[in-house]
């Protein structure tokens, strides 16, 4: 904190390049919060007052057509007034505070004036911001200023819970939980009412049936082969292994195309970089399980190949992103040194980049191996093969003791692999 601030005079707003954008985002945040509150209120009215059947109308708003503009305008007004009459969440989140131009807290009159004048400033296409974005008309006419506070905590004037943003945060949390409770139809009483069914599963699973651990189960056949739990566990590990190796091998070269410092700063480099990063992100955000459905329909339902392909695709995307971020974070010194010795770009990669990123690449690959083991235990659910096949087969039979045995084996596998990969990662780093 500067000595100025300690003396009670607030530091002036820093003239930032993106002032207007930040201001707009901060306002947008407030508006969205009020929109969310309106949504919540409507939902609760729907649920309790108008008694619309929940089954059909969860998260639906029954609003007459003229209600929409009203809601938009109403929330807008609420946002404006909440920003002016106190420190709203949007102001707080972006570190803004309204202050009088004379360096004192604004009076109530000034606050009201500012809220009213806001309309004058914004409604004519934001004319008030044209002349000086830092201090638009409504600030100037009301004799106020919007200060950006330094990121270190400002001297508190009021306990958080009694300020507007504090109350607002509490309200939002409460509203969210209330809404969630209704939307998801949470009903803890069911857990008790159906306690007998629930406890029966647990009890049966805790008396696992290991008869078919090493001996193939005659009742369970896949592609004309009988499998024991052990066999399926091995298959699962192989699926994880293959997809990790394939994924890492493909992600490795691609990651350099997705690293800004390697691709250079010419237009072609930028293009490749953006395409690569975009692909990584898209493929990453579709979960392995969903990929598995696609590949299962494509290849064969229940074939381990479908699982391997799904895991591989997701691994490439996830590792590609992690790898390229590592490449971007290297120390440029060795790069300079190799270039200064007359190395070409590919030699720079080979001698200055790869040695630097190798340990973290290994660590990420091991981490991914860990995830792939976890995923491959359940990917059978969507036709991906592996030990999950047994799990879901026994579950559909209602044979819970065998389900228990399979779950125990899964826990053992995941645990062991977690431990090994953790130890190896420790050694590398």
């Amino acid at each position, binding site marked *: 904190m500067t000595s100025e601030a300690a003396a009670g005079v607030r530091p002036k707003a820093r003239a930032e390049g993106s002032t207007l954008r930040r201001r707009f985002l901060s306002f947008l945040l407030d508006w969205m919060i009020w929109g969310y509150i309106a949504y919540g209120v409507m939902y609760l009215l729907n649920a309790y007052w108008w008694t619309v059947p929940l089954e059909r109308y969860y998260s639906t708003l029954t609003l007459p057509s003229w209600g929409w503009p009203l809601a938009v305008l109403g929330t807008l007004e609420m946002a404006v007034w909440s920003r002016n009459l106190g420190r709203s969440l949007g102001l707080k989140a972006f570190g803004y505070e309204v202050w009088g131009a004379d360096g004192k807290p604004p009076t109530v009159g000034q606050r009201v004036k500012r809220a009213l004048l806001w309309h004058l400033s914004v409604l004519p296409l934001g004319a008030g911001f044209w002349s000086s974005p830092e201090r638009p008309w409504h600030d100037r006419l009301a004799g106020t200023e919007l200060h950006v506070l330094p990121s270190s905590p400002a001297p508190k004037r009021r306990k958080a819970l009694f300020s507007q943003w504090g109350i607002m945060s509490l309200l939002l949390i409460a509203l969210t939980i209330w809404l969630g409770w209704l939307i998801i139809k949470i009903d803890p009483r069911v857990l008790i009412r159906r306690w007998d069914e629930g406890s029966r599963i647990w009890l049966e699973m805790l008396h696992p049936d290991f008869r078919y651990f090493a001996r193939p189960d005659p009742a369970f056949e896949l592609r004309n082969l009988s499998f024991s739990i052990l066999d399926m566990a091995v298959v699962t590990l192989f699926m994880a292994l293959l997809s990790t190796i394939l994924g890492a091998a493909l992600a490795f070269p691609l990651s350099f195309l997705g690293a800004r410092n390697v691709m250079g700063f010419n237009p072609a480099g930028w293009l490749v970089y953006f395409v690569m990063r975009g692909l990584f992100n898209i493929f990453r955000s579709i979960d392995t399980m969903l990929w598995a459905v696609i590949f299962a329909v494509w290849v064969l339902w229940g074939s381990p190949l479908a699982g391997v392909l799904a895991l591989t695709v997701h691994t490439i995307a996830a590792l590609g992103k992690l790898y390229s971020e590592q490449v971007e974070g290297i120390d440029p*010194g*060795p790069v300079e*040194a190799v270039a200064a010795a007359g190395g070409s770009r590919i030699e720079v990669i080979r001698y200055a980049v790869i*040695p630097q990123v190798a340990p973290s690449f290994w660590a990420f690959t091991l981490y991914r191996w860990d995830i792939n083991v976890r995923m491959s235990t359940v990917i059978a659910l969507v036709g991906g093969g592996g030990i999950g096949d047994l799990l879901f087969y026994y579950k559909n039979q209602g044979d819970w003791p065998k389900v228990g045995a399979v779950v125990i084996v899964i826990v053992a596998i995941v645990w062991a692999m977690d431990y090994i990969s953790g130890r190896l990662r420790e050694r590398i780093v």
Partner: protein
Amino acid sequence: MAEPYLVVEHLTKVYERGQVLALKDVSFTVEKGEFLVVIGLSGSGKSTLLRCINRLVEPTSGRIFLGGVEITRLSAREMRKMRRKIGMIFQQFNLIKRATVMTNVLTGRLGYNPTWRTLLGLFPKEDRELALKNLERVGLSDKAYVRADELSGGQQQRVGIARALMQEPELLLADEPVSALDPATSHSVMQYLEQMNREDGVTVLASLHFLSLARRYGTRIIALKEGRLVFDGPPEAIDDAKFKEIYGEEAEQVEVR
């Protein structure tokens, strides 16, 4: 002799990021075999100047000639060829930390070997022998297969020197080669540079922080201040007044023995 070995004419560099004027119209020449020391406060543009000479940094305007060739007009490919003849050592050593000393030294031969060989790490036998010889010269022959990050700072800088030696350079750029080292080690590293200068006839451009080191090793000194050349002359010519001009009023001379 018609033309000096290295000619820098009206060199200007503006960093686009932040619009920093790092070098302003700097001109000077260097004869073959000189040991030229560049001094100046940090931020005065020493590193930028050295990096412009091997075009690790692209000059904004101005021309640089090396042995009659206009470096500033070479294509990227030709420049890589040219860099073989320009060795460089760095303040932070810039070694490949997780590779062996041998690999680090061999990277000095990258410009001499076809890419497919270097990618596979297949350096010719002569290069490996040369590497061992150069390591012996800097007194590190028994560390050849030790990882570079297991060495001390002075040893690492000596590996850097061996790497530069591998290039069989005509010109050596040394960007604050001893700033990260303690005084005793500094002298040993500087003596290797002096040896290269005297025995192999390598022209050396070194930026240094301590005036005492500059006086001891340099045959000529140039000084930069806020990107401008403010002094060019023999070491003895820097008196107290000149010193204050370069380093500012409050500066005191510090001796390194």
